[in-house]
């Protein structure tokens, strides 16, 4: 299942290109309230900038379905459909780690 995601995501990333931050997809800018763009000392919240898009999408899907237990992420992931989630994942993947 993870492998099947990859082709779609690869083309997404190309389309998104070196997007300017102004072009962050809807929802992406809210994430950095918890997921710091630069690493913050002493945070137990995972750093997502520069992570593989496919991994972010997988986590979001599993949070959404409840397959992967979570505190707030399940409730947040339910607000995004597949296309929106993929766009956000591609955008974070393209950010410097």
């Amino acid at each position, binding site marked *: 299942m993870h492998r099947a995601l990859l082709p779609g995501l690869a083309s997404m990333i190309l389309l998104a290109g070196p997007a300017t931050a102004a072009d962050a997809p809807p929802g992406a800018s809210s994430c950095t*309230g918890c997921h*710091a763009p630069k690493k913050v000392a002493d945070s137990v*919240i995972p750093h997502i900038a520069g992570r593989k898009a496919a991994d972010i999408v997988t986590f979001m899907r599993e949070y959404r379905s409840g397959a992967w237990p979570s505190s*707030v992420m399940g409730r*947040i992931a*339910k607000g995004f459909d597949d296309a929106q989630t993929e766009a956000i994942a591609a955008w974070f993947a393209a950010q410097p780690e």
Partner: protein
Amino acid sequence: MATRRHFLKLTAAAGLAPAVVSAQGKARVVVIGGGFGGATAARTVKALQPALDVTLVEPNPVYTSCPFSNSVLADLREIGQQQFRYDGIKGSGVTVAETSATAVDADAKTVTLADGNKLSYDRLVMSPGIDFNWGAIPGYDEAAAQKMPHAWKAGAQTVLLRRQLQAMDDGGLVVMSAPANPFRCPPGPYERASLIAYWLAIWKPKSKLLLLDSKDAFSKQRLFQNGWAELYPGMIEWVPLSQGGKVTSVDPATLTLTTEFATHKASVANVIPPQRAGAIAAQAGVADRTGWCPVEPVAFESTLQPGIHVLGDAAIMGGMPKSAFAANAQAKVCAAALVKLLAGEKPQDPIVINTCYSLLAADYGISIAGVYRPDKGQLTDVPGAGGVSPLVAVGGLRGQEALYASSWFRTITAETFG
């Protein structure tokens, strides 16, 4: 790839041309208020489009954060850990005018400052937070707040309330009064009651806390009430509106709070009064009869005054609560939209998230989250998303959420103040 990148750079530059150079030179963005909304907006606009001239107007050299200020009352933090300076924002290329805005002229597009200067703007962002409706509770005015602190703007008021709690005898009665909706931080009064009880249970265990409420329901209610029963049995009594919770007058000289049903004499009284948008909003003509500011849901531009965007607690944001998380998230959406508008482009419809943690004890956290998008002219909950922590916690969830809460605080203050 190289040519593609080059091409995108060119088109971006072409698209942004009108923003960078207007007839008078650089386009100017002025931001009023250096809190979670305004400080984030100023630095995000500058980061997205460094060619813009961005000025942040804020009178205080140090910002004192309300989030986590309830932990100061419980001796879990020092007030200094709540304080942030504007050096990071200055370093990012934003001009900081250390004075307050005294008048906005929406037609002339100017902001008059207390230091006598006048700023012209192409777009104005206002995030002035709240002011109190002094007198809405007869007897409760600015002088009364020195006896019965609100501590709803953090700083000296927080320290005063903490001192009063420390001076109270064991066996004393702490009385809190919470306002009707809407107000800053819907779960805030209940987090405060929890953390005061946490501290009382350790230091003054014979004391009680009475929470007089002008509402019959509140944010994360069952989670709070279950937590109180579990952690502080018998210590907190919540009186809803229908049982006489609404405070109809106070007497600061005797620390008395009167409701429709009874009179309560407090050892320490914390009155959280009814609120409205920061006073400059009404002066600018962006507040309506409710005292709050109506905005459209894409760039948060005022529906009363074009060219002025209102964010954070001051604004009417549909289903979104008045929180620091929300103000910061709205500011980033607004900044991206402003950059587009100044470039003559159309901003995209946003999705905005809110997440608020509350502590019931040092290691006991709960949360509420929501996802919002524009619908019928206002920000509306995305159906099926959002909600509160589960009523039954498994696997150390409450402890984990307390850790997430403090991580969130470190992250958002770093993003806002640098």
